[in-house]
């Protein structure tokens, strides 16, 4: 039985619309399977991995029903017929709000900066 990938809808522009990719080889680990996937569908790679090769923080890889975060990461072993699902982590939508401030919002929020606010310097309101 070949190893297969389940592809989420946002990545299907890079799999010719296919939701399932069957690998020809017999990868022993998730990392090997991903390398085979990149060879077939190179556009998926940059959406799943960061530049340094780590899986993006809000992308989940499951082998069967197990999240590879808890089974050895990319070294997670595969069996004949393993199914790997690429899924957007449920944390993503929430984290988008929490961890990515809008672009203008780059100033320091607390501590010394707040002490130097106009009001703290007696410059607030109506100057």
């Amino acid at each position, binding site marked *: 039985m070949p190893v297969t990938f389940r592809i989420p809808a946002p990545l299907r522009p890079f799999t010719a619309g296919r939701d399932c990719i069957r690998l020809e080889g017999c990868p022993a680990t998730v990392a090997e399977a991903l390398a085979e996937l990149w060879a077939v569908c190179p556009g998926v790679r940059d959406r799943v991995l960061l*530049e340094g090769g780590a899986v993006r923080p809000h992308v989940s890889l499951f082998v069967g029903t197990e999240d590879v975060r808890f089974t050895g990461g990319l070294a997670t072993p595969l069996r004949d017929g393993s199914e790997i699902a690429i899924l957007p982590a449920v944390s993503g939508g929430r984290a988008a709000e929490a961890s990515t401030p*809008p672009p203008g919002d780059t100033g320091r929020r607390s501590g010394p900066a707040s002490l*130097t606010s106009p009001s703290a310097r007696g410059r607030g309101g109506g100057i």
Partner: protein
Amino acid sequence: MPSVRQVAVKEGDVLLLVGTTKGAFLFRSDGARRRWEAGGPHFPGRAVYAMAYDGRAGRRRIWAGAHSMHWGAGLHASDDFGRTWTNPEAAPIRFPEGAGVSLKQIWQIRPGRADDPETLYCGAEPAALFVSGDAGQTWSLEPGLSEHPHRARWQPGGGGLCLHTIVPDAADPQRLFVAISSGGVYRSDDGGATWRPRNAGIRADFLPDKHPEFGQCVHKIAQHPDRPRRLFLQNHFGLYRSDDGGDTWVDIARGVPSDFGFPLVVHPHDPDTAYIVPLESDGFRCTPEGKLRVYRTADAGASWRPLASGLPQRDAWECVLRDAMDADLLDPAGLYFGTRSGQLFGLSSGGASWELIARGLPPIVCVRAALVGAPRALRGPRGAPARGRPRRAARGRR
């Protein structure tokens, strides 16, 4: 996902590119700028922090940096006003694998000079400058800045360590300015090979040394093409002008309710005129006194006056972010800004009062105004020559 409404853009239209935390919207109007047709959302669910229009060399190209929390930040282009977008297999903006950092966000897309129509710039987080010499087909990291010895000491602000502003000098093709939060202003005089901090006179209230060589949290800089040695700067506390190409800066925060704010736009036809939106303190970041006001100087910062007509002046605790204001190139020029509350305002055709163009948008983080091609001949109500003539169309800011 929502269906995307398209706009029918014509030659001579004014186009507003509006990036929000949940996608991009396009607004079009003829040169009269009285009625606006809305399109979008493009990239629904993605944060579009940076947009640009490239009308050089006969193009009609829109650029957008769209960030997905799951799949990362992508750079996309459209040559048909949003009906289709490029989605290249390999991410065009990416750090080298051995760099030890990953792209978090695209903060700025900036076409190069009009006489260099194949060059584009892209500002990224973590702070880095990417350059394309083939109209955006391929991009490369500018090593002179990414390997700068100061880099390790730049500190992220609340939005991350971002290179958010790129200003190709209007006079000198070898000169380029960037602004980094929190690194300050850097200038290259050799086409990007080397960079020097240009922050003399700019405060850093949050550091023990209030006037360091670098490390300031500069929010926006802007240059007028008719007087390129002059730049205006909105700082994290502080409003400045330079008349020597950024070598020195003088405080011009006289007559404003707060010297804190994000956007700064120069008038496209008058180097003495600039616009800001003061916010009350970095701890609050809302419009002072609950009044939404744009402030204008017409004397290079010697004095500032509010432009409040048509804007809410009661219980308006608004915020306008660094790239959420822009001007078009027509004469009289139109000025536009968007709020975090999703309201889009315009002051067009020399009108005295702001008009609400749209409400109910997601939080607006980017507004770019563009003139599409050559302006159409418009006729006034009595057959008078039209308003909305272009000026300096060949030099264009974007």
